[in-house]
């Protein structure tokens, strides 16, 4: 183990991190795009005369769904070819953290942003007169759906470009890896959940085009709440990256910081999905029952708040691990 110098470790971390970023990052977008294409097929078989419009809409939707993977590609290329500058073991941990953050972070948004694309294709076959409304709503929904991937990208870039070499090696390496895991894992559920809400809204607009304004508003609020677990992950990542930890020789301090990242990261997956489900059915039913929109939104928000409490518990555990243990 000792024959590796720091330079070699930095390279090792950069290559492994790049592989993780692109390998995991390729999962989500591919599934999402496949879902879009499968519903586009269904739509064409229902209404073959519109195959041109549906095809165009499918390609636009897939292009947006691809962006999470493109973020992962940018991070992977930077990891492979960037001049890393200072060769310290902390830098190696930061590069690995960047790869983990972007790789996991791209999964949820990629799958999620396939839902609005597919539902919009299906909607066009049902309501050809409202093609432009459906496409606009699809674009808004899948753009908001990318937010968790953007958070992971921010964390990855900060880990890539910030200079951590002044910090003591021993707890800081775990803090940086934990920072990557926290945002990356928490983004999975939020991205997927946001996509469910966006898909539901496209389906709803296809049912009742007059409800477009209300449906889009409820969708945006639902997606925003579904993204909260990813934001908790981002907060914990920022604390882990920017707090100065005193040097220690004890392993348990480092592990506490790694555990803090894992807690918020894993803890955010379920609430993100649950909030997405709540938002999906809320937007579907707002479209079918427009007069009850305020009540539906209220029930959605209360349900989401309850489902979110587990993410808050996870964040509390992380903060205790960081500041108390």
């Amino acid at each position, binding site marked *: 183990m000792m024959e590796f110098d720091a330079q070699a470790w930095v390279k090792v971390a950069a290559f492994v991190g790049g592989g993780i970023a692109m390998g995991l990052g390729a999962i989500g977008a591919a599934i999402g795009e496949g879902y879009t294409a499968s519903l586009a097929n269904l739509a064409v078989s229902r209404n073959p005369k519109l195959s041109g419009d549906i095809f165009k809409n499918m390609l636009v939707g897939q292009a947006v769904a691809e962006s999470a993977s493109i973020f992962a590609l940018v991070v992977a290329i930077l990891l492979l070819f960037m001049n890393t500058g200072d060769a310290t073991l902390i830098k190696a941990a930061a590069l690995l953290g960047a790869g983990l953050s972007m790789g996991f972070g791209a999964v949820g948004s990629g799958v999620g942003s396939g839902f609005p694309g597919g539902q919009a294709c299906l909607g066009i076959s049902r309501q050809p007169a409202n093609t432009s409304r459906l496409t606009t709503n699809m674009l808004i929904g899948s753009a908001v759906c990318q937010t968790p991937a*953007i958070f992971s990208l921010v964390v990855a870039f900060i880990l890539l470009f910030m200079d951590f070499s002044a910090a003591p090696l021993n707890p800081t390496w775990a803090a940086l890896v934990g920072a990557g895991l926290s945002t990356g894992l928490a983004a999975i559920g939020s991205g997927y959940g946001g996509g469910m809400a966006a898909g539901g809204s496209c389906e709803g607009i296809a049912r009742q085009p007059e409800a477009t304004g209300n449906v889009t508003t409820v969708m945006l609020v639902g997606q*925003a709440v579904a993204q909260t677990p990813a934001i*908790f992950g981002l907060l914990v990542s920022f604390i882990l990256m920017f707090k100065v930890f005193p040097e220690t020789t004890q392993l348990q301090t480092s592990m506490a910081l790694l555990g803090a990242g894992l807690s918020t990261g894993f803890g955010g997956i379920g609430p993100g999905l649950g909030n997405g489900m709540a938002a999906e059915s809320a937007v579907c039913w707002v479209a079918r029952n427009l007069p009850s929109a305020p009540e539906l939104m209220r029930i959605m928000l209360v349900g989401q708040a309850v489902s979110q409490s587990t993410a808050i518990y996870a964040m509390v555990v992380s903060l205790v691990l960081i500041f108390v243990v």
Partner: protein
Amino acid sequence: MGDLGRINQLIVTIGGQNLTFNLQVILMTWVVIAALLFFGVMVTRRRGMLPHSMQVLGELFVGQFYQLTEDALGKEYVEKYAPLICSVFMFVVLSNWLGVFPHLEEPTKDLNTPLSLGIMGFVIAHYAGIRSKGFKAYAKEYFQPVFFMMPLNVIGELAKIISISFRLFGNIMGGSIIILVVSYLCYSIVLPPFLIAFFGIFVGTIQAFVFTMLTLVYISIQVK
């Protein structure tokens, strides 16, 4: 790439405490305020029964947000809260668009701006809650469903500030970092204008609307 994370700061020491001013952010906020004042003057100048084009724009905009507020809060609160909702949206959306112009930067890229807007919305929402329900009913909600859940309920409320402000900050900051890195990778050829249109204008508008809607929703949860 070196200017990633560089901030112009003015540090003033008063009574042993360091006060830090982010000069660029303050300057950009003034630009936004000046632009909004200009817009306000243009819209309300020479008003008449036959509206000129700017007046139509202003009326459409204000009418839309009064309608949104009425949907969320009900008729009795529209007059009180719609001006707030309108101005929050105008400020945030213009802040997000500012990065489109060369040499200008989004004030919302600095966490201080979204955080102060978030805290403002939080305080207003809770003040509205106490005013409409009375302090006793307001305080009682923290002890639901059982009394020892109180600390977690308080953390849950405070987490709303974090969620609303970090969402705006993360999106705008993320967009500007992506533009910076991609411009650096492709030597500013072809791609950056599309990215600026997407992250600056499209995402900026959506996030400003989300921020405004969440402020409105927080108020409506407290009021009812």
